[in-house]
């Protein structure tokens, strides 16, 4: 992209978003089934990344265990739609109800966890390590619990159906997930652009000051934490539908750190940047790791260090910052001060 075009797009964020949207809408026309399947999965990761972006980029809460919500959503989705939860059957066990339930359970869990964490005034590095330990515990519990499949996880998750037809084929599945991605994006944008979102940003930039102004900062942190968790939970439920399996690796430390890389590389302070970060890293990994084999992780690690040091706003962050002033234009929010 030429500099002039980039400038034009930056001046017109809506145009840029439309270009990206059109790209996704037209993608299946390329006709390569495999690429469509891959992109479907990346879109799910992208939704997951937006969830972390809300929590980390917009609220300044470094969460080293965001996969707990992703995995929890996936497990609830799997268990409910397979009819494995006692007392929940019939219409409630249908795919859509299961998905709604998954999101609700994750949000509730996040509220409880947030209440536990934020009213304890845990912050910064402490929060990071505590959430890391929680993700390790979650993975252990999932491995140990045989009813939910133990180490091998659960398979055979039924597909979603729309208007009496099951969504199994590659292209309908793609459009289903893509519309979820667009919906989540629009919803999250509404949230961060709302007065509520402004207060969250204020809490991030200076928690003490926000408190002096009379805001109950813990409350705002809990709510945004729950929203970010619910988005991750939705991504987890969609992941279970797309791949037809859940396993303990999805809830653990490894997955939590993966999403952290996507969001940091993409640009944590901008939703769309985080989303594209997930797509970029996954795509690069898919196509480069076979060529580079052992060197892939070495390069990823070093690239990540460089990115943290020199581009704290990520690869896409600066380009896509829709409202540079309101979303933390000074190089770094609370995360870095």
């Amino acid at each position, binding site marked *: 992209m030429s500099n002039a075009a980039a400038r034009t797009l930056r001046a017109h964020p809506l145009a840029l978003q439309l270009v990206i949207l059109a790209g996704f809408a037209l993608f299946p026309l390329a006709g390569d*089934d495999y690429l469509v399947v891959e992109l479907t999965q990346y879109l799910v990761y992208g939704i997951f990344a937006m969830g972390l972006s809300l929590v980390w980029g917009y609220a300044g809460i470094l969460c080293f265990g965001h996969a707990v919500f992703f995995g929890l959503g996936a497990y609830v989705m799997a268990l409910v739609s397979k009819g494995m939860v006692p007392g929940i059957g019939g219409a409630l066990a249908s795919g859509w109800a299961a998905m709604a339930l998954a999101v609700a359970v994750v949000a509730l869990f996040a509220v409880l966890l947030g209440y536990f964490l934020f009213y304890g005034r845990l912050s910064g590095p402490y929060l990071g390590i505590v959430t890391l330990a929680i993700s390790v515990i979650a993975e252990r519990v999932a491995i140990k619990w045989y009813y939910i499949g133990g180490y091998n996880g659960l398979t055979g998750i039924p597909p979603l159906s729309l208007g009496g037809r099951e969504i199994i084929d590659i292209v309908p599945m793609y459009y289903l997930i893509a519309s979820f991605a667009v919906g989540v994006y629009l919803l999250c944008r509404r949230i961060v652009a709302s007065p509520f979102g402004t207060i969250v940003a204020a809490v991030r930039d200076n928690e003490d000051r926000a408190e002096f102004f009379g805001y109950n900062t813990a409350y705002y942190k809990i709510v945004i934490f729950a929203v970010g968790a619910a988005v991750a939970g939705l991504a987890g439920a969609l992941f279970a539908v797309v791949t037809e399996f859940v*396993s303990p690796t999805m809830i653990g430390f490894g997955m939590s750190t993966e999403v952290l890389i996507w969001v940091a590389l993409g640009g944590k302070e901008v939703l769309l940047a985080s989303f594209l970060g997930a797509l970029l890293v996954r795509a690069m990994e898919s196509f480069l790791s076979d060529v580079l084999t052992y060197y892939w992780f070495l390069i990823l690690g070093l690239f990540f260090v460089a990115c943290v040091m020199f581009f704290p706003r990520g690869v896409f962050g600066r380009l896509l910052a829709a409202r540079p002033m309101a979303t933390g234009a000074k190089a770094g929010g609370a995360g870095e001060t």
Partner: protein
Amino acid sequence: MGSKQRWIAVAALLACVLLAFAPPAVAGKKPVKIGVVLPLSGGFEIYGNLGVRGAKMAVAEINAAGGVLDGRPLELIIEDNKTDPKTSVEKAKKLILRDKVVAVMGPVSSAARDAMTPVAVKYKTPLLYGIDYEGGVCNRYVFLYSAIPDHDMDKMVPYMGQKYGKTFYVFGYDYVWPHKMTEAIQRNVDKIGGKVVGVEYTPFGVKDFTPTIQKIAKSGAKVLMLIVPGADGFTFIKQFTEFGLKDKIKIVALASDENYLTALTPQQSEGIFTALPFLASLDKPEAKDFVARQKKMFGNDVVVTWATCSHYGLVMLLKKAIEKAGTDDREKIIDNMGDLTVTVGNGPETMRAKDHHMILNMLIGKFTGGKLVVEKDLGRIVPSDQCKGKDLQ
């Protein structure tokens, strides 16, 4: 140069470029592609590399002998699943949808296998699995070149009980395979009138096993069934040896193989038992020949284990099935894959049609003086029907 000549020159150049980019299929026959999804990073890469070497050698030998279906060569497309179920699913889809492989081989962990199974079913592609596991899979699209609890425990437990005493202690990882193994051990201990004096499970990544070692030491057990393969198993054996318990309590380390020789000193591995369908030190012509061929292809330092053999055997089975079917149609290959017999490193081994599991020849091995040697040849072992009460479709 006139304008006419210039056009001719351009046309000639274009033709050359087109020829250069033309698919090589013009030259040779279209290859039959086999997908491989094995861990080449992320923790289980030791087994992944063994499997890849087995498969590569099988393909090289088949191609040298003229390929399949009137001269079509086999081609391996190898993907790294990073020891991760999600990645396994992605890679399996890539191989099936993009590369149009006739079969997918792999992975290693049972979690990844269970995750890949729906992909194999959905796209009607055979999944060829070559790692020992807990048994019980019954699926038209899954073929398992694996030793299951039926293969080893029915003979191993009586052997150890008779020789060293009938009190057993079971210590394993806390996941499905060790739990199923424990059931098989318990069943056989009951059969010989022995006693399991303790069962304990451990999570991944424990660094200090002394509390467990102390419990084992005072349990009065004569035999320890250790179901902790790999790194944590090395840590356990190092610490168990350190406390000087190996003389009093014999260890059967399940799934321990030639890899243990590089990770443990001869003193640390001395006297440990294992049960496997193949050992590199086996004194049979096919075993010696197999090891020699591996060394010739991958160098003298190459480690050859049962995992090498099983993945080699899977390719050989697939080749036979393709020839028998007379086509590279995947459903027809599956129909013809059952009840085929191949000889890899230890006698003829048969893939049963009724449950897609193997009839294998088993060995008891013992680590002795820094080598893994054959202690007893258990011969041909027919496992119980893994599809009992289920439908293979």
